[in-house]
């Protein structure tokens, strides 16, 4: 029975590490998207809303 417990524990730990890494990457994507939306918002507020010349530079 011991080998089954070890096998299940190893597989589950690998899955957990995968989930943890995915979560961290997701957090990075979340903060990058927040920054992009904030930049778009501030640039749109700075531009003349009637002229239709609002541009965003995401570089």
């Amino acid at each position, binding site marked *: 029975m011991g080998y*089954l417990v070890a096998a299940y524990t190893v597989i589950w730990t690998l899955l957990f590490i995968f*989930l943890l890494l995915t979560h961290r990457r997701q957090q990075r994507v*979340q903060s990058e998207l*927040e920054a*992009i*939306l904030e930049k*778009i918002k501030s640039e749109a507020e700075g531009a003349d809303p009637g002229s239709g010349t*609002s541009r965003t530079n995401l570089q």
Partner: protein
Amino acid sequence: MLLSSKALQISRLRSAGRCLKISGWVLVPTYLVMLAAIYAAFLYAPTERVMGDVQRIFYFHVSAAIVSFAVFIGVFLGGIGYLVTRDRFWDSLAASSVDVGLFLTAIVLTTGPIWSKPAWNVWLKWDDPRVLTELILLVICVAYVILRTAFPEGHRKYAVCAVFGIIGALDVPIIYMSVHWWNTFHPVVITMSEVKLDPMMQQAGLVALSAFLLLALVLLLQRVSIRLHDMITKDILKNLREQE
């Protein structure tokens, strides 16, 4: 229109952030409870008298099945929610639930034969109503995923997927009732009113069920946030192209 689109993007980003935050909170408890489930299934629970150690797969097989049923409530609600509101958040919920449901249904249909072969000397009994209806659910999940990739982005795709998901979710009560409606060799261990198990087996089963519930929650929240991020990124790119 542009302003409302931006407000929608910010609202979706906040929803994605909330999903991520909750999945972060649940992640470590999920790991610990799953370790407890492994201990309970293999070391704590007593060995079944007739089937022996192979019966221990029951804790993972049944837990995955029950949680997959719960996940399909998300598919149903997501589908109805999208058809009523046309808000793509509901579509994301339904699609993410199908992803998690597919994973769990695959676990059920993998552990089932592994248990069935030594216990009943047959890998899969295709004419068994519960096996058949569970297999139909798996096929519906795979078809749903293929359908999503086949259609171009737009309301038609989300509406068709919502209807398809609702039909798929309606298979869940049929799976549950199949052992009561038709002749089956599938054992009925758990019903709404009673659990025909040794108390220690019940406790091990409950720990495994909690572990699978938490795992499904983490996977679902991560999938929803990934889909919301994808949606926001595509919207931003679309807006930028329109401005150029």
